[in-house]
């Protein structure tokens, strides 16, 4: 069973769906009649960037880079077909995407703090634990785990400035991820998590990079957020009711995040 198909444990992506509405979690992970998830181009690019930065030696084994051809012409079409046949079993990337991966990798690997953090460690190690407080089985797969028990997460973003990335943290609940993963690592290893760092890298030139951590206050608040989601998840699982949004007519607060 792959990391994503194991639904006996909840991940941070699962918590995000619970946070939106439990019905979304059900649809994505539990509904036997739901159509299979398609791998969108954005997902493919994301995985390729992660592979290039964190496991560059694996890149050639997983991805095949297509020739630069004009697929509108007959010759171009033929060349592309030939490439697809030759690249069987690998994920195909067009040359623009491959160049993008390379530029991002170079930028991250050149950035001193990122270079230091990625010097030694393991990519995509699966962590499994049980949240003691709520009694729910959880899982996580940090991008990078160092031997000193430091978690590193690579985020590609439009804007890696402190202000821009803070917006991403709020929008995608990266704070919840940091708290959930840190606590999970401690529960799974019995050792203190020595830090959770984000490597934020912009996906357009000049591919600027920054490394961030969150303060104790934000992590504490994030911990409360994920525990609330875990509790909702537990109650849904026990009752078998995966609710949607509020059924009563609700006042919309347009300025609240």
């Amino acid at each position, binding site marked *: 069973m792959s990391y994503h198909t194991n639904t006996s444990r909840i991940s941070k992506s699962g918590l995000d769906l619970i946070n939106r509405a439990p019905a979304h979690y059900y649809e994505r992970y539990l509904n036997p009649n739901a159509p299979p998830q398609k791998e969108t181009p954005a997902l493919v690019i994301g995985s390729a960037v992660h592979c290039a930065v964190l496991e560059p030696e694996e890149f050639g084994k997983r991805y095949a880079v297509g020739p630069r051809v004009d697929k509108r012409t007959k010759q171009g079409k033929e060349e592309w077909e030939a490439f697809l046949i030759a690249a069987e079993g690998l994920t195909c990337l067009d040359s623009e995407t491959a160049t993008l991966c390379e530029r991002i990798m170079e930028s991250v690997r050149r950035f*001193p*703090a990122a*270079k*230091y*953090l990625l010097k030694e460690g393991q990519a995509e190690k699966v962590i499994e634990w049980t949240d003691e407080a709520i009694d729910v089985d959880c899982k996580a797969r940090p991008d990078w785990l160092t031997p*000193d028990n*430091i978690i590193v997460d690579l985020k590609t973003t439009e804007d890696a400035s402190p202000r821009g990335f803070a917006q991403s943290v709020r929008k995608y609940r990266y704070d919840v991820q940091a708290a959930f993963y840190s606590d999970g690592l401690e529960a799974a290893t019995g050792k203190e998590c*020595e*830090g*959770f760092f984000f490597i934020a890298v912009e996906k357009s030139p000049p591919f600027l990079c920054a*490394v961030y*951590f969150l*303060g*104790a*206050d934000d992590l*504490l608040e994030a911990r*409360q957020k994920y525990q609330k989601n875990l509790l909702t998840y537990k109650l849904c699982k026990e009752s078998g009711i995966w609710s949607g949004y509020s059924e009563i007519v609700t006042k919309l607060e347009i300025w609240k995040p």
Partner: protein
Amino acid sequence: METVNNTTELTTTEPVNNGPIFAPAQFEHAQRIAKVLSSSDLVPTQYKNNVANTLVALEMANRMGASPLMVMQNLHIIHGRPSWGSSFIIASLNSCGRFTTLRFVGDANKCKAVATDKATGEVLEGPTVSLEMAKAEGWLTKTGSKWVTMPELMLKYRAAAFFGRLYAPEVLMGMQTSEEVIDITPIQPASVDAINSKINPKG
């Protein structure tokens, strides 16, 4: 009730134990009080519409023989931990009836809290707190540290907390003062300094 002149003393009755409010018979009643209190506009925000927090404050007030509102005003939740306001600790020590009013002995760099045990006449001295200690413990170097802007007050607050912890731990009920919690909570993981010193040894 004892009337006192000193402003740091609380006008409260001797601590009375009304029995644990978490006993089944009392719990229902306490919960009803908590509901009413938590809907009041006068309680601090962390208790407003929060019956659970209010119930905890009620339990503490009951154990201390103090008014629930007073406990709520002085029990702060800092970084998720309940803690006492330092001035409340001083007031509680002064009004607990066992000591004379707390005096602070020291200078601009150090301070200790001193009081006389009323029963034995013995002079009790709390541990000395110094700016050197604050520096060594890292309280002084934290961003926005009150030890930099108001060292005299922080010395006295900490001296009182140490005195209380040593001679009347039951007054603090095993909790720290808000200032202590702020001082000891790390603002960043230790690994941050390690990384920054490695990549920029001069910085």
